[in-house]
Structure formats: C-alpha cells, structure tokens
C-alpha cells in the first residue's frame, strides 16, 4: 500500500515537474520577448551570435543538405523505377528538402552545434556566478546574453535552411541526372512544376520557429544550470535532447497547420 502511494506520488511529482518546466520556459520566453521590445538591440552582440550560429554552421549544413538530397534521389529512384516514374525523383527531392528535411535537418545540426554551445557557455557563466555579477552590475543578463542569441538563431536558421534546400536539390540533381541518367529536362521540369513558392516559404517559417525553439531551450538550460561542472554537462545534454525532440514534435504541428 505504502509502495503504491509512493509510485503515485512519484508520478504526480514528475507531471508537476514537466508542467513547471513548461511554465518556466514560457516565462523565460516572455521575459526575453519583453526585453527585446523594451530596449534597443545590442547589435554588436547580435552580429557576434549570428556569426557563431550562422556563418560557422554553413559547412555542416552544406554537407548534411547535399548528402540528404543525394540519398533521397537514390532511394527515390529505386522506388519510382518500379512503376517507371523516375521523372518524379527530382520533385520528390525538392519537395522533401524544402518542406521538411531542409528546415528540420538544419535545425538539428544547429542545435547540436550552437544550441549545445549556448547551454554550456551560459551554464558555465551561471555556475561561476558571472550571471549574478551581471545582475550586480545592473546589466540585465537576459538583455545581454539571451536576446542576442534568440534573435540571431531566428534569423540564421532560415538562412541556413535556404542553403540546405539548395544544396539538397543540387545533390539530388547530381545523383539523379549525372549518375542515374534520369532525363535532365524532365527532372527539372517536374521540380518547377510541382514545387511551389509556398513550399519554400513555409519551410522557412518552420525554420524560424525551430531557431526560436533551439535558442530558447539552449539558453534556458544554460541559465538554470546548477551543480558545478557536472551540472554544465547535464545542462548541455538536456538542452540538445529537449530541443531536438521539441523541434521534431513541433514540426508535425507546424506542418499540419501550414500545408
């Protein structure tokens, strides 16, 4: 009996914890938002974060985008060949990249690269009480640390997604037309025909949402780090895991909402 009560207790606690966590992240988001509105942006800091989140992720994103497009082309070819519709490979790759894989893969790569770094950086500052020092110096840490990161992420993830989309389609084109000898004209024609502007723009809207999610989670996890070096490690891991899962889950709802 006692054990049963304990189990229920534990279950309730964890539910409560999740709810609290949701609330805390939301509050965090609101305060970041309010600081974004309340005071002018620290342009210099934003650019620095943009360079870190965006420019330095280009290589990774180009690689993942290109190879994703290539492998989609290859797999699509084997599937479509069964009913002689190889000409649809190009549009499948293009649609897949612009709608889903471009935004999601880019967001995941940026999470792994920059989101984790945000959590680790802010976590270290937190455990070494630098953030408290900022408060003492009357410099609001949310304004100086969080807002530039969130703004930079929201701006840069869509930009990276554009690159990823393009490279993915290029990779698909290379495999489909150059290696598998699908007719080039039909390949491109079907891309132009079946891919619409909506597909690209909705993908970019998604990417912006993912940028918000990953930066928010990264910063929040860093900002709430406790427990020394071990805590920093834990915060980093949690940031990546939670951000990745949130991105994938929200992807479904965003897709359902938009398309």
């Amino acid at each position, binding site marked *: 009996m006692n054990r049963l009560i304990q189990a229920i207790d534990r279950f309730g606690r964890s539910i409560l914890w999740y709810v609290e966590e949701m609330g805390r992240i939301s509050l965090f988001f609101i305060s970041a938002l309010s600081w974004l509105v309340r005071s002018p942006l620290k342009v210099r800091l934003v*650019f*620095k974060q*943009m*360079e870190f989140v*965006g*420019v330095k992720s*280009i290589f990774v994103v180009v690689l993942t985008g290109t190879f994703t497009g290539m492998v989609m082309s290859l797999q699509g070819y084997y599937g479509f060949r069964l*009913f*002689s*519709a190889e000409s649809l490979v190009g549009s499948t790759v293009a649609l897949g990249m*612009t709608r889903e894989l471009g935004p999601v893969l880019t967001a995941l790569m940026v999470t792994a690269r920059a989101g984790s770094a945000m959590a680790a950086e802010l976590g270290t500052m937190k455990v070494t009480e630098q953030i408290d020092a900022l408060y003492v110096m009357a410099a609001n840490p949310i304004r100086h640390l969080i807002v530039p990161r969130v703004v930079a992420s929201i*701006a*840069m993830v*869509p*930009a*990276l997604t*554009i*690159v990823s*989309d*393009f490279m993915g*389609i290029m990779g698909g084109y290379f495999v489909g037309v150059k290696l598998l000898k699908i007719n080039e004209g039909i390949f491109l024609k079907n*891309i*132009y025909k079946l*891919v*619409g*502007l909506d*597909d*690209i723009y909705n993908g*970019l809207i998604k990417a912006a949402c993912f940028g918000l999610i990953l930066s928010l989670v990264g910063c929040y996890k860093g900002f709430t780090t406790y427990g020394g070096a071990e805590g920093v490690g834990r915060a980093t891991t949690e940031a990546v895991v939670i951000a990745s899962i949130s991105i994938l889950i929200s992807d479904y709802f965003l897709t359902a909402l938009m398309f």
Partner: protein
Amino acid sequence: MRSISTEAKVGLFILIALIILGYMSFQVGEYGFGLKKGYIVTAVFDNVTGLERDAAVQIAGVEVGKVEKISLVDGKALVELRILPNVQVEKDATISIKTHGILGDKYVDIVPGETKGSYIAERGQFQNVEKQADIDKLLVELGNIAEDIRVVTGALRKVVGGDAGESNLSAIITNVKELTANLNSVVKANDRKFTVLVDNLTSASKQMEQTFASLSEITGKVNQGEGTLGQLVTNKGVFEKLDNTLASIQTITEKINTGEGTLGQLVTNKGVFEKMDNTLASIQTITDKINAGQGTIGKLVNDEETVTNLNSSLKSIDKSMVGINRFVSKADQFRTFLGYRGEYFFEKSDGKSYIDVTIQPKEDKFYILGLVSDPRGRRKTYDRITDGVTVRTEEWDRNGLLFNAQIGKRFNDLLLRGGLLESTGGFGVDFFAMRDNLKLTFEAFDFDLDRDPHMKVFGEYQILKHLYLTAGWDDFLNRDNDSLFAGFAIRFEDEDLKYLLTSAPIPK
C-alpha cells in the same frame, strides 16, 4: 591584413542565402509570377470530376494555359481557363477533359476547329464540349446490353433446349458429318483428276486469251479493210467473187454428193468408210492394252512398284533433311571457349600457366582440352637399387608441357569432370555460385600409392566480362610442396573455332 569583421561575414552569408532564395523562387515560380498573363475563356461541362485548379490546358499536347477557376452554375460545372495571350482558339474548337500521366492527372484538351479567322474572345465560351465518358452511365448501358443478350439466349434455349431439340441437333450433326466424309472421299478419289483439270483449264484459258488477242487484232484489221478478208468484207467486187466461189463450191459438193469425181467416191463409197473404221478400232486396242498394263508404256503407267519407288525416294530425302536439321541445330548449340589462366605461387615465387579449349556441345556437357606450363615440371620418382638398397629419388622434370583432357557434366550448380589433369589421371569438382560469377573448384590428381595425391582448391571470381580473378591453395596435402596462389584468368567464347569444329567432317 585585418581579419574580416563579424558583420561582413554575417552580411555576406545572409546575402548569399537571399540570392539563393531569390533564384529558387524565380525558378519555381516560373508560372507563378506570370500567372495573370493571358485571357480567360470558359466552358460548361456536365462533370469535371478530378479536374483541379491550375490543371494544364493543352492543344495538341502543348501547354497553352491553366484552369483558373471551377464553379457550379445551374448544376453544371463552369470552368474558366486562362489561355496564353499568343494562343488563339477557333470558335468551333472542341474542348474535353482527359487523363494523363501515371498519377491520372486530369487536364483540359482543346482540339482546334476548322474555321480559321473567327476566334474565341476574352470571356468567350466554348460551344463544342465533348462529353466525358461517364463510367456509371457506361455500366448502365452495359447492363441493358447484357439484358438483351439474355433474351436472345433464352429464345435460343427454347428452340434448342429439350430432348427433341437435342435429338434434332445431333441428327443434324450426324448428317453434316456424313456429308463431309462423302465429300472428302470424293475429293480424295479424284484428286489427280482435279489437278489435271485445273491445269488444263489454266492452259486453256491462257490459249483462249491469246486467241482472243489475235482475234481482236484480226477483226481490227478486218474493220480497217486490211488484208484479203478486210477487202472481202469491205470491197464489193470481192464480195461478188466470193459469191461466185461459193456457188462453185456448191456445185462441187453437189457433185460429190452424187458420187462424181474422186472425192465424191471417197465420201459415198462404203469400202473407204469401213477402212477408216478399222483403223480407229486398232487404235482402241492399243490404248486398251496400255490401260491393262501391257507393254513398256503400260507398265510405266500402271505398275504399283513405280509409285512405291517414288514414295521411298521421297522419304529418304525427308530423312536427310531431318539429319541436316539436327546438324545445323547442333552447330547452334555448340559453344567453344578459349581460356588462359595464370597463377602465381607465393611460397615458391613462381608462376604457372594454363591454356585450354572448352568445347560445350550441349548446355551441360563439356570437353576440356588444355596445355599447362608448370615451371616446377612434373614429379618423377626413380627407384635405384645400389648395393641392395633401394634408393628412391624424386625429380622434377622441368621440360615439356603437361596436358589436360577432361570430360565434364554439369548438374545445376555442380560441374563434375574427370580425365587427364596435368598429364595424370584425376578429377575435379566445380561449384558455381552467384549466377556463375563465382566458381569454387576442387581438383585431385596425380594419385600414387606411396604419397598423397595432388589436391588443389581455388575460387574464381568474374570481375569483368572476360576477366576472372582467382586464388587458392595448391597441393595442400604435401607440406613441402603446398603453396597459396593468386592469379587471373581470361576466358571468352570463340565463334570462329566453333564453326571450324562443326564444319569439319565428323565420322558417325
């Protein structure tokens, strides 16, 4: 040099991303931006199932516009089409909805009209709308047809059905059967006659044709008054002469009738007539004899043996044709392969070469002839008796080539072969795998009571059409002679050799 500033890096990246986005948008939006070009025409359809907005509008398979809007007007579908400005559609053009592609996309097809010069204007409407084949309607029609057929078959059943109908039918069939049998026998019995008849008819008709041709020539000439007859017909004087001539002929025949003159006697005299009768009788006898098979001609015509001889000679010709056929098809089956195989022995740092000809008369039968140049040569043992002690010496005879001569048969993936292997008795087993790309071979030869036989295992893998890689373990039973080896083989089918072999005389 000062390093590039953060702003420059970010700015450059954003710029590149925007350029790519712009490029992609323009490519994809090729139709999007130019969407509002062109003019609108409308058409009213009974049913536009499956047709969607932005579906293609085609003339002769060329896309000339898109479906702009589909709306319901008076229970019918009003389809608005946006046609490219440089395309004009005749007023009597026909419009219809069709399906294309594996996805079954619907599109609007326009067949241009006949009257050039009068075109559908902006917001004009198509008059000729082709009805779409409505599957449901079609099914109803089919049902009606089936009902009709059922009525017909019912009536038929009434006529034919029942015992009376059945017996009638069977009687009819019996009659027909008898009739055809009779007909058959008649035709068979008179086969030769019919042939002759037809031949005669053919030649007769040919002659007739010639006759008619000359006749028409003659009458033509006659008409023109050419020649005697022509003059006869056309000239009055001649006609009179003819009249006279005929009159004299009449006199002559009268004289003959009365028995005057030689001819008259010939005709009126009974003796002459009897002689003629006798002559005809003897001719009759001769032909009777021929018919009865008497004399040489008779025999030739009537003897059964002649027919038999003829028959048998035809049969032998037939037989020889079969033989020729078999030979030709053998040549087709016959395949010969030339092969070279080189092996390099790691533990001896030495090579070994094989050249062989594989003759494959049937799919599963092989003759393998080959030469092996083994730098080790052959192992020879000598027993020398010196001072009552037998000393056995082994030598490797490095000279001379070794021979392969084997016969093989293949069972599915297994090829068993035996015969001479490297000039000694032996056998080999080949196992084929991966659609014959991989061959695993075991060979055993050089059997001797005093020592282990030479055994060899190796695999051969086809990497190119004619090129094989090979590796294995040679003579693994003899510790002092064993060696791993690797090498390659070239094998190809030789058509020339095949014809050489099959066209050479083969004793049976």
